[in-house]
């Protein structure tokens, strides 16, 4: 039964972190993408760059910046400590934040393009038919951008599952606590446990395959 434990713990942890990160990425990503695609405001270019940065920065750099922000004296870390009484670094929540930050750009890039590609006349038709901007976004723009949004979610989820560098820096590699699948694979390989590494790799490949398959099914609808 021990081998089951060794595999199930990182697997469930990875899924928990990835699903939570993807939910936040989806909600926030849609809001950011809609704003970037539809609104003109000062500093829009800068906002776009800020969101996209983690996509091009080396994960260790993203991780390092997160360590500073999430540390006891960091902007986010100090608030978290005040609220909960304990630090956020080296917890699964920190790993989820890392996964969120690195996968958000993928969501924003895909969704912004998809929202921008929706025929403007169709949205205007909705406004003229008595619907305000929120209703128009909800019933017209987002449904028509559905394929792009789904693609963004999948890419983000895949990126979150595979997150390694930034996670290692903010959450460490604590077995049973923050050791996600990629970190466990690295650990197994380092300690010469190739059998375990093979098994974990196989599971990740299967998950990735299933994700892609599920997406193409969703996209067909």
């Amino acid at each position, binding site marked *: 039964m021990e081998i089951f434990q060794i595999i199930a713990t990182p697997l469930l942890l990875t899924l928990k972190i990835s699903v939570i990160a993807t939910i936040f990425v989806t909600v926030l990503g849609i809001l950011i993408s809609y704003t970037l695609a539809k609104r003109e405001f000062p500093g829009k270019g800068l906002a776009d760059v800020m969101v996209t940065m983690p996509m091009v920065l080396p994960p260790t750099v993203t991780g390092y910046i997160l360590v500073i922000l999430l540390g006891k004296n960091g902007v986010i870390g100090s608030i978290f400590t005040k609220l909960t009484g304990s630090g956020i670094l080296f917890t699964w929540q920190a790993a989820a934040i890392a996964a969120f930050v690195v996968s958000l750009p993928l969501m924003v890039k895909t969704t912004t393009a998809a929202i921008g590609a929706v025929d403007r006349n169709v949205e205007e*038709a909705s406004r003229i038919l008595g619907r*305000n901007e929120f209703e128009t976004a909800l019933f017209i723009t987002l449904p028509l951008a559905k394929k792009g949004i789904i693609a963004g979610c999948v890419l983000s989820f895949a990126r979150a599952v595979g997150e390694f560098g930034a996670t290692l820096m903010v959450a460490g590699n604590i077995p049973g606590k923050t050791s996600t699948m990629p970190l466990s694979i690295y650990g197994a390989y380092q300690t010469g446990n190739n059998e375990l590494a093979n098994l974990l790799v196989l599971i990740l490949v299967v998950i990735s395959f299933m994700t892609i398959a599920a997406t193409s099914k969703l996209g067909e609808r």
Partner: protein
Amino acid sequence: MTVEVDIEKEFYGRKNRKKKGEKPSFSMNCSFDADSDFVVLFGCSGSGKTTALRCIAGLETPGAGTIKINGTVYFDSRKKVNLPPQKRKIGYMFQENALFPHMNVRQNIEFGLKGLSSMEKTDRVNEMLGLVGIEELEFAYPDELSGGQKQKVALARALAPNPEVLLLDEPFSALDTVVRLKLRKELRDIQKRLRIPVIFITHDPVEAFTMADRMAVFEDGRVQQLGTPEDIFYHPKTRYVAELVGFSNLFDNALVEGHGNGAECTFLWSLGTEITAPYIERKAGDRVSWGIRPENIELVDRKNMHIIRQEDRKNLFDGTIMNVVNKGTSRIMSLILKESEDVLKVEVANHVFDSLKIGTGDECMVRLRASDMIVF
């Protein structure tokens, strides 16, 4: 219906962001009012018709001015009134149907119905489907429909919420001729039945003439002439309007020589000769422009000169046929005039042309009736 529009708007380059000291790339300053049922905005593409319509719909905000429909103020820059599109009770048809591709015909038409029970919605949609005659397409999706059917759905959708005014932006321009003629008639019938006022955009002179109660001719963001279709087509006031409605023979710089007795005609010096034209209130020595439609120029058979009465033997021109284009039912000849070497376009019905046995290079004589000419 009463429409009162008086708006200004300036556009600056790409993305319409004004840089310091930049001149607008396009400026609109249009004002028209009408109290008719069917108003047509007529002009070339890029003349500002669509912008004016979008301003009325609230899709664009004018820089300054007022828009009032049936007494309701939609926009007033001084009083800071600017109703959003969803508050403006209008129906709008786009050039491309702009149907919701992810909804079927019924859902498309139902989309604008708010605050009704589902029974009332169903009834209203059925009524609209019947009105435009597409009951059998109820559950079809837009990509399964032909161009004409799509525009019928778009019309039904626009009319469903019972708008105060219907705005149509060249709704039939992408359709083939047969469907276009049919839909024009159907739109006119529906408009009369529902008594809903319509503002209609077109660049097609025939469409404008056959549909309009009142026309506004747009050029470069400004209304050049406002009037009944007859006014616009028979008495254009500017060179641009004249050209647009088919006066392809236009000549500038004609010298006013004097007037016939009792202000019945004006004598002009143009094309190297004296021309008898309709009366215009100008002094001798003034310069004016004049024009005539190619289809109003008459070919004169020299052998039959004796038939023409003496007093009608004026405005006669000799010329050489430079080229002939067959339009199907008539031919357009370009005639080089002997006196001045100006080119006159003459449209002749095919049976007349054939009976005269003339062709490129031949000489012929034409007559311009004063009553068909315009002077401005």
